């Protein structure tokens, strides 16, 4: 079941009141929510509910197994390795079995062995990456002694909770499970924010992403040779917006749906194209995945503990593996290497600057101390539509006003960095979207060649510019708009919400366009 469908709308209209009605009885609510989530997942293919159930039971067994071996580090480690292997094994089976089987057949053929390994009759289960990553975070956090195992039913609610089941955000056990202990307060639901996120997500996902895909992105990457240089450049910008609108739109809906059920999710996107560096970009793009990669892959590889070279290596490995997770293709390797290399270069420059200033610590990201703000602390930093104020973030210290010329230079420098970062990210998106390296190079070649405009659609340009500009709208402005909506009467709020649905229905595509990240 996908969010932007009539079927899901009916499902949610039934689940929302039922959830609040069963809330006073903890056990009943848990059973209801697990059942509802399984119905949601069965809406795609009921057979794969067994896979989800297997993941719940299997990971709970691993978590308890690890926890019970508190004093036997060797056994604890073995259980952890088994858990990781089992999870990645299942994920790898569904994602790469066909590729490996055919490749093995080709290898056997080259060796003169006329045997083709059977090609598994598998379809990649929707959302398998997301719930596998969540399950891994649970087991690894138990292994790292950050949490104790939860009761099976709680864990089942956590892993199968339908708002985040198929496309994230990747919510950690430590973020979700405590919310099960305190009963959600039916007198205080963030209705306005929830509806805002759902409506905005619908428009981004169904209207903006689909429009750009149909009008320029798909045709460009299908036949790059038929597009002029300017058109190709706009097409690449459009893909940057498309993938953002598609992905952030879906996770916005997930966050909004959960809010109305009384649950909080972590923020997943924070105006990523306002980033002033790649490091900043990864703090703003798919934030729940990037911290997952950091905590369970980058740190697992050793993080920055083995010296400078090892740090660079780990950065590169993390991003390349992150790229390969999207699929067994060289395009994803290049995308990952581009980001890994970029992060390493940024770090090297940061350290060099720090050494020149004689401050070895300043190259080590001083803004990353616990409790410190993780957004760019520079003044007048643009905010996203929501969520830039951090829990526990200290107020910004008052500083002595800088001379106007210095402020001007700093601002200009920030815009140059922002522009460079955006284009570097776009360069990565070309490889991410293209079917092959040759295709990516052809798209880039069209841009570099500077061929004339062939058939540039002004509406496409307008949408791209508007979506980019929207990232620079301050969170305060967005909050004020939302507050105006909140102050409306119920009929006005209902009418506004229904109007959004009409716009989405009238401007959206025929049928259901799958979410880009379902394939991952």
């Amino acid at each position: 079941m996908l969010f932007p469908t009539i079927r899901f709308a009916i499902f949610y209209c039934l689940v929302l009141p039922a959830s609040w009605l069963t809330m006073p009885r903890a056990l009943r609510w848990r059973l209801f929510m697990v059942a509802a989530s399984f119905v949601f997942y069965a809406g795609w293919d009921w057979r794969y509910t067994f896979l989800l159930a297997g993941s719940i039971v299997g990971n709970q067994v691993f978590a308890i197994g690890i926890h019970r071996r508190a004093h036997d580090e060797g056994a604890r480690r073995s259980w952890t390795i088994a858990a990781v292997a089992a999870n990645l094994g299942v994920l790898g089976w569904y994602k790469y079995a066909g590729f490996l089987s055919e490749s093995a057949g080709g290898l056997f053929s080259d060796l003169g062995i006329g045997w083709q390994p059977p090609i598994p009759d598998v379809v990649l289960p929707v959302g398998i990456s997301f719930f596998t990553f969540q399950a891994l975070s649970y087991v690894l956090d138990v292994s790292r002694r950050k949490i104790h195992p939860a009761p099976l039913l709680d864990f089942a609610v956590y892993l199968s909770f339908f708002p985040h089941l198929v496309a994230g955000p990747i919510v950690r056990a430590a973020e979700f499970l405590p919310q099960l202990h305190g009963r959600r307060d039916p007198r205080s639901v963030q209705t306005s924010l929830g509806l805002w996120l759902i409506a905005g997500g619908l428009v981004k996902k169904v209207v903006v992403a689909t429009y750009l895909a149909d009008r320029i992105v798909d045709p460009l990457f299908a036949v790059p040779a038929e597009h002029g240089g300017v058109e190709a450049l706009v097409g690449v910008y459009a893909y940057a917006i498309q993938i953002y609108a598609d992905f952030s739109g879906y996770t916005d809906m997930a966050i909004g749906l959960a809010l109305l059920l009384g649950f909080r999710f972590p923020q997943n996107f924070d105006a990523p194209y306002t980033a002033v560096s790649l490091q900043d970009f990864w703090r703003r793009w798919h934030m729940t995945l990037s911290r997952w990669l950091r905590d369970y892959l980058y740190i697992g590889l050793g993080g920055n503990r083995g010296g400078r070279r090892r740090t660079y290596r780990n950065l590169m490995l993390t991003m390349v593996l992150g790229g390969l997770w999207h699929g067994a293709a060289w395009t994803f390797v290049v995308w990952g290497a581009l980001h890994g290399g970029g992060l390493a270069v940024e770090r090297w420059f940061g350290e060099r600057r720090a050494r020149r200033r004689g401050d070895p610590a300043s190259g080590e990201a001083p803004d990353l101390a616990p409790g410190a703000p993780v957004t760019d602390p520079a003044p007048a930093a643009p905010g996203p539509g929501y969520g830039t104020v951090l829990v526990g973030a200290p107020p910004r210290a008052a500083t002595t006003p800088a001379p106007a010329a210095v402020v001007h230079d700093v601002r200009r420098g920030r815009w140059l960095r922002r522009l460079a970062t955006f284009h570097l990210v776009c360069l990565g998106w070309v490889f991410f979207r293209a079917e092959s390296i040759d295709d990516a190079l052809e798209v880039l070649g069209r841009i570099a060649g500077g061929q004339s405009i062939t058939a540039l659609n002004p509406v496409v340009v307008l949408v791209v510019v508007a979506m980019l500009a929207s990232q620079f709208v301050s969170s305060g402005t967005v909050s004020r708009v939302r507050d105006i909506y909140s102050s409306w009467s119920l009929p006005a709020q209902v009418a506004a919400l229904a109007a959004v649905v009409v716009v989405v229905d009238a401007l959206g595509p025929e049928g259901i366009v799958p979410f880009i990240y379902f394939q991952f």
Partner: protein
Amino acid sequence: MTIIDGPQRAPRPLVAPSRRAPAPGEQSAAAETIDTVDTAEPFETDYTDDTVEPFESVDLDTIRWADDEPALGFTSAGRAIGTILAAFALASLLCADSLVLAAERQPFGTTRDVALAVARPLRSASHAVGLHLPRLWLAELTGNAELPTSSAGEDLDVPSATVATATTVEPTKPAPGPTATTGTTLPPTTTTTLPPRRTPTAEDPLRVVMFGDSLMGHMALGFQRHVTSEPRVHVYTEYHVGTGLARPDVLDWPAYLNQILPGFNPEVVYLAFGGNDDQDMQAADGSRIPYGTPEWHTEYTRRVALVMDVAAQNDRTVVWINIPAVNRERLNQAKDVMNAIAREQAALRPRVVYLDLYAVLSPDGVFHEYLPAPDGTPIRVREGDGVHVSIPGGELVAPSLLAAIATEWNLVAPPAPAPAPP
């Protein structure tokens, strides 16, 4: 679950919705209270402190909740439910036409009947008071108007393109394995004598259009890429997901093609249908025609013949692309029947070419997601759904598509060099 206590950090809230709507001046208070669970990691402190680079802090205290922004708009759950349900009801009236369309698109059965029983009265009510007009106006304004539909296929007055002879084209790649899985038993046929075609040039290229259901999608893209270097061919492609010949109530393809083809004035029409046609159909009298029955076979044959005749008008060449082996059991069986029907009907029409993709995509008669490229490296020729051709698969197929018309349309030889300037 228990979050392990840590001695070094002050407790912090993990769950923070306030118990009441905050006043404008006290929003920050809304982000406090309720659970106070310490999330410190006593066993991990040094480790995490040392390895947080290059991303943000690992500490749970710095989680950026999506709803951290203080705002108005806290309501009771009842109000939230009321808003959602009322908005859903109003949107159902405003979008009643879409609801009926979505209901009609369901496979025949109880679900569809129930959906229609709900959606049709809504549409009547919506039309009675004009609530459907805003959506209609918006859709027409943006060119997103609906496509033609009919319950059992519009009865078109189209001349039959049949004669007693036929044209059958085998793919360019020789088939090393059996192709009998297509279910066809027709003997090889011969080409009838037809008037010769013109020779396209870069100045006056061959006008080619490609239509179909989602099966056509990546095949059309692959073909477009293939003919990028062929200036003598100009291609227009259009496919509609979730359509086919079984469900004219979703999109009446013969009527649609009859309506739009004159505007393109094409010389060659490629067609690909069948990906969604392994289902019941509806007869003109409204009765159901169950899939797999002789009646279904007769009706599907009629529809295939009709769409071929529509496409073949004005002496156009029609290339019917068959359905290769798929990785879905029911459709894989159904496609044998549908391929056989298409092959039979093509054999009756001299300008209709039946193109068999088995030799390219299923050289040994079975489904392959990956196939070796000419250099031996495996390429993914089919999508993960086990049905659709991937873009590389479309590129693999493209030479066969072009070869199907190359001889007839004098495209085998390279284009004549441009005359030298005087």
